[in-house]
């Protein structure tokens, strides 16, 4: 046990030097429902470099969303550790955890999770309110972000009055509300048309290059994969390989 801890400390030091923003170490997640057990993650280990654009590929049900929940501090792993900025997030108190979810990480959920009764701009202003920002300042900032994702004219619409792609963009805008260091996006372009999808990819790339935001996306979008720095392949709860887009293209060429 003592030996293990020492190992972790050494690793943490190494991570600090090499600039890992998130490290998942042997993360396992078992969902129990009655008698059945689902092993959503079977020991995923991954180091995510600060400021990189990482895409996660994997078939449906392979554990992508589960991994997102773990590394974003939205769920507790059954076993294993998650470090954000070298801090074991299991050690955080509720205030620190809330701060992390509010300012450090921006989430784009697969099912958007917009608050249905609130207008688009109110949805974007919500995380700002939790960060202590309110009034005109937050309204202006929210409007600016909405314009950035091409929804400036629809700020007062409710999610139910919008198309899937528009809702997805509101979710993206909300994730950017508190200018997070890490952007966790679960299939952010799944419902977008080609052009809007490309714009969002470009936006992510810009955030990454200019603001140093670490972008992590689960995706099946070829364009998204090509734009990213690294591609992580996940299969049946295990990370099978990490490649660069060039390697992936070779891979696809091989198949054809």
């Amino acid at each position: 046990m003592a030996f293990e801890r020492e190992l972790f400390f050494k690793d943490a030091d190494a991570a600090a030097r090499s600039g890992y923003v998130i490290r998942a170490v042997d993360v396992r997640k078992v969902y129990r429902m009655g008698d059945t057990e689902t092993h959503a993650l079977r020991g995923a280990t991954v180091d995510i470099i600060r400021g990189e654009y990482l895409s996660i590929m994997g078939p449906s049900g392979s554990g992508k969303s589960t991994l997102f929940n773990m590394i974003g501090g939205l769920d507790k792993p059954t076993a294993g550790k998650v470090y954000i900025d070298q801090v074991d997030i299991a050690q955080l108190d509720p205030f620190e955890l809330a701060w992390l979810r509010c300012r450090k990480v921006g989430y784009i959920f697969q099912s958007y999770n917009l608050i249905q009764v609130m207008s688009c701009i109110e949805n974007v202003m919500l995380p700002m309110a939790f960060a202590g920002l309110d009034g005109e300042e937050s309204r202006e900032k929210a409007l600016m972000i909405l314009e950035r994702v091409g929804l400036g004219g629809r700020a007062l619409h409710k999610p139910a009055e919008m198309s899937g792609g528009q809702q997805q963009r509101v979710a993206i805008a909300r994730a950017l509300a508190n200018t997070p260091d890490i952007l966790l996006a679960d299939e952010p372009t799944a419902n977008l048309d080609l052009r809007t999808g490309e714009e969002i990819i470009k936006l992510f790339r810009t955030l990454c290059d200019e603001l140093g935001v670490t972008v992590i996306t689960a995706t099946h979008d070829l364009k998204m994969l090509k734009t990213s720095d690294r591609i992580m392949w996940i299969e049946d709860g295990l990370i099978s390989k990490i490649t660069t887009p060039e390697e992936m293209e070779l891979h696809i060429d091989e198949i054809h």
Partner: protein
Amino acid sequence: MKHDKIGTQVKLPMGRAVQIAVQGIRIRLGRSMVTVSGVVLGIAFLMSNVAGQLISDALSRERETRQIVTLMEALVRNEVGTAAGKTLAVTVHGDLERTERLFMERVAKMPFAAVRVSGANIDRGVSATPQNVAEGAYLLLVLGQQQNIPVDLETLISGMNHVGVLDAVANRTYAGQAPRAGVKRDLLFGKETQEQMERMREHAAQARFRTVWVAIISLLVTIISISNALLMSVTERIREIGTMKCLGALSAFIRRMFLIESAFIGFAGSLAGMVLGALIPLIIYGWIFGFGLMFGEISFVRFGVACLGCVVVGTLLAMIAAIYPANFAARMVPASALRSNV
């Protein structure tokens, strides 16, 4: 533990929580109204039952009071025969009971030639001193609840043209002495009225028990109705609570937000329910039995306490009913709250 790179979430001030809670009510106004109406119904039920009890209780007390007054009046009539051409004397010592006051009003309407009064005011009465009030009178009424009156009975009845004294208090002393045997002195609250009073007291005790019992049963129904309404309104928002937690809301903030929201809903609902629940029995009883009969004996203090109690109970119940599911939702792991499908 301190981490140089992980900050601590700010606690939002109370004003901000109130603002967000009010905004929440406004945004889902339709849904909030459904929850409010759940509270309205519960409290209207409680209030109408309690108010109905208080009113019917007051009605039966009023009816008995009037019976007693009629009995007293019959006693006077029995004593004087025809009132015409005769003088009545009334002397009052101490506080008048409601029955005595009503009785005095009735007596004043009888066709006496003159009415002499001391210690009170009667329509067309001639005021006199306690010593000479009975001069030339045919009948003397001694009213008021004072145990001892400062004039002795002989002085009182000297100068009467017919010695008849009706006293409201059984063991009253006159100038410190019990009335001497031989002086004719009947009691207004004679055997019959005394029995009636006794029955009245018994009825009042029964009515009080019935009121408490009805209040307890209605309270149970109200608790279920209100907690159901609030439980629904919170549990159907567990996903929303999960989303808020993912966006950085503290559990304490979510608890507080729901506490404020439910307090508003509870207060508005129970205020409306209280008015509704008080008005309905007032109008129905008043319409059937007449408002005069109803307001005669009603205890406004008890009625006010019931109104206030209903509002307090409704507000507290709503808060308690909301805090349990809100607390439960606030403590859920955000990822599982997001998946909740209530």
